[in-house]
């Protein structure tokens, strides 16, 4: 009996905290469904009486979908190139081959993973300006490949380590070239790891703000975070539209994080123990 009361107490406390944590998320969704007359009021209404999808029409009118298309283009391309062509070969080599300089390469990857991006903003802008990569999709894609490569390599090394090396040896015996071993044997069975890494990479690039802000100065080239921040800077902020845009901006990352949270936790935990 005493234990039941104690249990109940713990459950209630936990869910009160969780409720407080979720409230902002709930408030974003509710606010996105309210007409401006119900937003700009001094009356406290938790749900509101006349919910509407008008704000979602509104974000189409202000051109928010252009930012979404830009983000999808840049983030998808960067993710595919980063995970498929940069990180997985590197991670495979680090996991399978013992060559001199291997540990310093791992250290370098670890160091760049912690590297603060804001420090790079000024010099990268100057270099990209000289190379005519400012206001260019290619420029931003290159940046996104570079900033996500360290983490992708780490995650994939962790994943490849779980695949038995006997598999590689069997492939070689059967006459597979090293590249053939990677692309025909290892990558197909690493699909869950590749999907998790890609999703995480995509989420990082989707959220990225400071490079998108400095390198894309023309409105029609801007990505979702910068486009959203621009709405905030305006003098008369239309909060209904801003909240609707926020919901739309959250959808891809929220889906990825929820689907992959178990996997991410495992990856992070492995990384933490390994280091």
């Amino acid at each position, binding site marked *: 009996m005493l234990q039941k009361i104690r249990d109940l107490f713990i459950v209630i406390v936990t869910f009160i905290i969780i409720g407080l944590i979720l409230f902002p998320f709930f408030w974003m969704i509710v606010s996105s469904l309210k007409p401006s007359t119900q937003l700009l009021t001094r009356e406290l209404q938790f749900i509101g009486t006349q919910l509407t999808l008008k704000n979602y029409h509104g974000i189409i009118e202000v051109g928010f979908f252009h930012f979404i298309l830009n983000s999808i283009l840049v983030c998808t391309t960067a993710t595919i190139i980063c995970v498929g062509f940069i990180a997985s070969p590197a991670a495979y080599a680090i996991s399978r*081959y013992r060559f001199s300089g291997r540990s310093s390469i791992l250290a370098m990857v670890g160091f760049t993973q912690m590297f*603060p991006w804001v420090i790079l903003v*000024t010099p990268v802008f100057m270099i990209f300006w000289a190379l005519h990569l400012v206001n260019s999709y290619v420029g931003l894609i290159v940046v996104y490949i570079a900033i996500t490569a360290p983490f992708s390599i780490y995650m994939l090394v962790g994943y490849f380590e779980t695949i038995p090396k006997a598999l590689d040896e069997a492939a070689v015996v059967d006459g597979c070239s090293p590249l053939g071993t990677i692309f025909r044997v290892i990558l197909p069975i690493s699909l869950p790891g590749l999907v998790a890494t890609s999703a995480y990479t995509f989420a990082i690039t989707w959220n990225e703000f400071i490079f998108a802000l400095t390198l894309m100065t023309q409105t029609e080239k801007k990505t979702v975070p910068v486009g959203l921040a621009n709405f905030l800077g305006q003098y008369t902020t239309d909060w209904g539209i801003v909240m609707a845009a926020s919901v739309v901006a959250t959808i891809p990352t929220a889906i990825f994080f929820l689907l992959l949270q178990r996997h991410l936790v495992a990856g992070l935990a492995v990384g933490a123990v390994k280091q």
Partner: protein
Amino acid sequence: MSGARVRWRKAGGLHGARFYGYTLVLPAIALLIFFFFIPSFYNVELSFHKISLFETVRGRGKFVGLENFAKLIRDPEFYNALKNTTFWLTGATVGLRLLLGFVLALLLNSTALKRWRLADVGRILVFIPWGVPPVVAVTIWKWMLHSRYGVVNLIFQRLGLIQQPIFFLTDTSVVWISIILVIVWRELPFAVVTFLAGLQSIPQELYEVARIDGAGWFHELRYITIPLLKPVITIVAFMITIWTFNNFVYVWLFTRGGPGNFTHVLGTKVYFESFVNYKIGYGATFGVIMTVIMMVFALVYFSTLFKRSVNV
């Protein structure tokens, strides 16, 4: 094709591991050098120049030696940003995240939640803020903390806690609390989830043995949970400290460093000097100072990890 194959095989003979190892790693290394190392050195060079953003088309500006650094150590704004970055942006939020993260992880790992089959649901729900982009997190809180129509002010007034609305974004006595609130809200799940993974890796038998010996709740926490979770806590503390110390997006989007220069941090100063004041050289100087601080921090981090792996 077959000729190429033979050559692949031959190369795979004696020096194969080395050859393929380097070839496969090369694109990644080249990218990291091009993107992280060259700009870092270029940043140092920029910090020795007086150069305006408008001059970027024409050339490199004027070499001024250490003038930017001399200006920086006399600049009260630098010390203000350094203090804000250390105490408010990093110190307060990291401390709160570690504390709240630990408490929440303990609650989510408690037998009570498991008996009620709510542990999984709880974990997923706590995870949600991490799925919200930082820009959106700032947007939501700016709306919730709006001085006139924000739900927080409305609730406080309804409860009779305040008579006049609080100006969360412009009142210097509360603006840091608002920024800390946003950061802790969005970044807390990382701490909770890693702590939870750490708690779940502690063998249950330890607790059973302790219980047989008559240990209470507090003794289990003091002598089993905290010591065994310490490695995870250390790593999380280091990681989030580094990420937060260099953060730009929360302060910039929330207050633009305002009111006045009150909430500027080092990260916003780099951007502000380079792209708002158009002083590329001076902005780069802030970047160099941050790089030095980070290098020292990284050295401490790696040497701590190294020491531990030697001891264990």
